[in-house]
C-alpha cells in the first residue's frame, strides 16, 4: 500500500511539473492543480496509512484511531488550493483578455492584441 501511495504521489508530481513547465496559462493551471493533489496526498500520508479506522471517537470504550492531525491540515489545504486556483484562473483570464494571448512568458514581443477603435466603444 505504501508503494502505491508513494508512486501515485510521484506520478502526480511528475505530471504536474511537466505541465507547469508548459508555455500557456491553462496547462500551467492544470499542472498546479495536479501538484496540489500530490502535495495534499503526501501530507495526508505523512500521518500513517490506515484502513477502517476513522478519526471519530468511539462511544464504546477503547479503540484505535487514525491520525487526525494531517487530515485537518490537508482539509484546509484543499480549500485554500481551490482559492489559489481560482485566483490563478482569474489572472490567466484577465491577461488573456488584455493581451489576446495566454502565454505566460514575458520578454518575447508578440501581437499585443487588436487595436480598439474609438468609435467601437458603446454604452452599456
Amino acid at each position, binding site marked *: 500500500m505504501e508503494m502505491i501511495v508513494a508512486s501515485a504521489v510521484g506520478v502526480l508530481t511528475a505530471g504536474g511539473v511537466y505541465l507547469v513547465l508548459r508555455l500557456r496559462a491553462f496547462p500551467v493551471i*492544470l499542472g498546479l492543480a495536479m501538484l496540489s493533489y500530490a502535495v495534499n496526498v503526501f501530507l495526508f500520508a505523512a500521518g500513517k496509512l490506515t484502513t477502517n479506522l476513522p478519526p471519530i471517537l468511539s462511544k464504546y470504550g477503547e479503540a484505535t484511531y487514525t491520525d*487526525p492531525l494531517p487530515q485537518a491540515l490537508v482539509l484546509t489545504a484543499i480549500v485554500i488550493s481551490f482559492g489559489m486556483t481560482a485566483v490563478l484562473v482569474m489572472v490567466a483570464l484577465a491577461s488573456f*483578455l488584455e493581451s489576446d494571448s495566454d502565454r505566460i512568458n514575458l520578454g518575447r514581443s508578440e501581437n499585443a492584441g487588436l487595436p480598439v477603435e474609438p468609435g467601437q466603444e458603446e454604452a452599456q
Partner: protein
Amino acid sequence: MSDGNVFLIIIALLPFAGALLPGLMIRAGRTACAGFTAIPTALALTMLIVLAPDVMRGEVIQYELQWLPQLGLSASFFLDGLGLLFAGMILGVGLLITLYARFYLSGEDPMGQFYTYLLLFQGAMLGIVLSDNILLLLIFWELTSLSSFLLIGYWKHLPEGRQGARMALAVTGAGGLAMIGGMLILGNIVGSYNLTDILTAGDQIKAHEWYMPALILILLGAFTKSAQFPFHFWLPHAMAAPTPVSAYLHSATMVKAGVFLMARMWPALAGTEAWFYIVASVGLITMVVGAVIALFKDDLKALLAFSTVSHLGLLTMLLGFGTDKAAIAAVFHIINHLTFKAALFMTAGIIDHEAHTRDIKRLGGLSALMPITAVIGTIAALSMAGIPLFNGFISKEKMLEEAAHTVWWDNPWIIGALATLGALFSVAYSLRFIFHVFGGPVRDYYPAKPHDPPFGMWAAPALLCVPVVIIGVMPHLAEPLVNIAAGAVTGVEQNAKLKLWHGLTPALYMSIIAVIGGAVLLWLHKPLDRAWIAAPRPEAKTIFDTVIAAIVALTRRLTDLLFTGEISRYLAIFVVASVALGAVAWSGAGLAAPDRAPLPVDPVVWVGWVLLIVATGAVVVMHRHRFRALVLIGIIGLMISSGFVFLSAPDLALTQISVETVTILLLLIALHFLPKETPVESSAVRRLRDGVIALVAGGGVAAVAYAFLQRNVETISDYHLANSYEGGGGTNVVNVILVDFRGYDTYGEIIVLGIAGLIIFAVMEALLDGPAGRRLRQMELSQDRSRDRHPLMMVVATRVMMPIALMVGIYIFLRGHNQPGGGFVAGLVVSIALLMQYMASGFAWTQNRQRIEYHTLIGWGVIIAGLTGAGAWLAGKPFLTSAFGYVHWPPIEEFELATAMLFDLGVFLAVLGAVMLMLYSLSRLARHAGETVNVEPMDYDPVVREDKREGEA
C-alpha cells in the same frame, strides 16, 4: 523581567527619544532647536555622572530586560570603565558639537534634520558602548552606519557628499555584515550572546577551531569602521560632511567604534599570535601610510582625516600588542586623541567658515587675523605632534616605549623604527598645520576676510584645549579614569602611573628623532610635495568605483541570465534546485531502518491506482485539447477522493469531492473565454528536457514519500485524540482540531479564502471597465453552442434538488462536530446547489433572485467567527477558547450546543460567500460578452407555449 540600574537603559534610549524634538523645535528658532537637542544629551550625561562614582570604584552596573530568553535575546546593558570612558566622550563631545553646529550651520541648512540625525547617531553610538548583548550591539553597530550615512550625505546638493556617504555606507556596511557572522560564531562557541559571559570565556574561544574565522570576521568589521588599511579610503571621502559631523564622527566617535570593539573583545580574542600579527601589523601599516599621505594633503580636513587614520592605526597597533601596558597606552591615547583632534576639526571648520577656503596653499598668516583660533589650533596641533607639556606627548611616549620593546618576526627593531617614522611624519604634518596656516606673512587675498568667529563657535574647541594642557602638564589627573578603563579592557586591575618625565628612555630618543626629523621634513616640504605630486600612486576612489562598477556589471549579467521574464525558466530553475537540495539531503545523513509494517493491498486499490496513473498520463499527453484534459483531471480528483475514503479520511473525501466539482465548474467557465486548444510551441528538445526534469522530480518525491511512509514518526495527535471530547466537546477529531485546537489557523484560512474571492471580484471589476471589456464585447462566442441553453429537464431537476441539497448541507453542517462534515464541506455543498441554479436557468435569471450579496456573506462569516473567538474573552479565557454544554428539549433527543458550532457557522458562511463570489465574478464575463439575457427560467417552457397557443386560437 528586569533588574539592575534603570538609569542605564534611560541613558541608552534618551537620544532616540530626544531625536523627535529638534524636528519640531526648529519652528521655534535655531537656538531653541539647538537647546532642545542639548537637553537629552545633557540629561544622559548627568545620569552618567551620577553612575560614575560607582564605576570608578570598580563596580559594573548592569540592567537587563528579558525579551526572548530562549533565543538569547535580551535588552541588556552594562557600564564598566571602558563603557564609562566612551559614553562620557560621546555625550560630552556631543554637547560641544551641538553648540558648535548651532553657529556653524548656515540659515539655509535644515537644522532640525541635522540635529535629529545627530541624536540618532549619538543613540546608536551609546548603544554600542553600553550593550551587554552582542546581538543588540550588532543592531546598534548597523544603526551607526545608517545614521552616519545620513550625516555624511547631509548636504544632499553636493555630489561629493552623496558619493562619500555611499562609499562610507558600502565599506562600513560590508564590514558590519562580516562582523555579524563573526559575532554569531562567537556566540555559538560560548553558548551565550551576553558580552559578560563571552569576556570570561577567552580561553575557551581561543582554543576553539572556529577562533580564526570569528577573529577575522570581527576584525573586518572593526577595521572597516575604524578606517584601517586597506579600508582607510572611505574616511577622507566622508569629509564632504559638514565639519561638526567630521569632528564628531570622524575624530571622537564612529571611527573609534572599531577601536572600542577591539578593546571590548580584548579579553576574549587578544593575546594569540594571530591577533598580534594581524592587528598590530595592520595598525602599524595604517599608522605610517596615513601619516605619510597626511603630510601631502592641502585640504585642511583631508590632512586631519589622514592624520585620524594614522592615529587610529596607532591605537589598533597598541591593542594588537596584547600587553597590559599597551592597553593602558591605547586607552590614554583615546582620551588625548579625542581632545586634540576634535578641537582641530572645529578649528578647521572655523577657518573654512571665515576664510571660505580650506586649502592650505591659499592660507597662511592667519595668526594675525584670527588670534584666538590660532592659539586654539596651535595648542591642539602641538599635542598632535607629541610636543611635551601637551597630552599627546605622554601617550605617544608610552606608545613608542611599547613599540621599542616589541619583537616582530624575530626582528627587535622594525616596529620601533616604523613607529618612529610614523611619529616623524605626524610631527611634520602637525607643524605644517601650524606654520602653513597660522604662520607666515599675511596674504593680500583670501576668498573672504578672515576674522575670529563669535564666542559660541570657538567656545567648544577652546574647552577641549583645557584638558589638552592640563593632562599634558599634570598627567596623573587622568590616572583613575585610564586605570579603570584599561582594567575593563584587560580584565585585570591596573595601577599605572602617568608621568611627564620617564628619564632617558629609548622612547625619549625616538621622540627627539621624530621632532627633529619632522621639522626637517617640513623644511623640505616644497620639493617633497612636487615629487609626491609627480609620483604615480593608486587613487582609492578610482579603485573603489571600478570594483563597484565590476560588481554591478556582474550582478546585471547574472540577473539578465536568470531573470529573462520567462516564468517557465524560473519554475524550471526552482524545480531543479529543489530536487538538487533534496538529493543533497538524501545523500547526507543515514536513514533509520524502516520500522513500520506495510499495509496489505486490497485488489480494488489496484483499479484506482491504474485509473489514476492512466488519467495523469492522459492529461499530460492530451493537455493540448483543453476540454479533454479537464474531463481527465476530474478522474484524478475522483480517485483521490476515493483514496481518502479508503484510507480512513471521510472528511477529506467529502471536501475533496465538493472542491473538485467547484474547481471543474470554475475551469469550465474560464475555458469558455480562453482558447480551446494549446498550440505546439516548444521544440522537441525542450519537451524532452521538461520531461526529464518532471520525471526526476516525480521520482524524487516518490522516493521521499516512500521513505517517509515506511518509518514511524512521533506525533502530537495522541493529545488531540485524548482531549477532543473532554476539551472540545466533539467526537469528530478532525473537526474539533479545525474549530478548536487549531481554530486560529482556520480563522486565518477563511480570511484568506475571503480575500481570494474579493481579489477575483476586484480584478474582474477592473477588467470589465478596461480595454478587455471592449474586446469582450467584440468576441464571437456563439459558435458550438447548443440551441437549448437552459433545458427543461435540467431546470426542473435542479429546482427539485435545491431544497434537498440545502438540507444535506445543513445536515452535514450540524453533524460536523461529531460525525464527518462541518462548515467547510457544508459551505461547498450549498454553493454547488446554488451554482446548479445558475447553470440551469442562466446568470441573469438567477441573479435577479439573489437577495444577499456574496461580499456580505464573507464579511458576516469572518465577523461571526471572530466574535465567537472574542467571546471567550468575556469568560476571561484566551481568544478562541470554546465552551459547550448539553441541552435537552423534550420532544428531541438530548443534543449538544457548542460555541465551536458558531465558529463553524462563520466558516460555513465565509466559504459559501467566497466560492459564490468567485464563480459569480467569472460568469459576469459572459454577460459582458453580449450574451442574450434570458428572462424565463428555461428556453422552452411548455406551459407558456400552451397559453400562447390558446391565445392565438
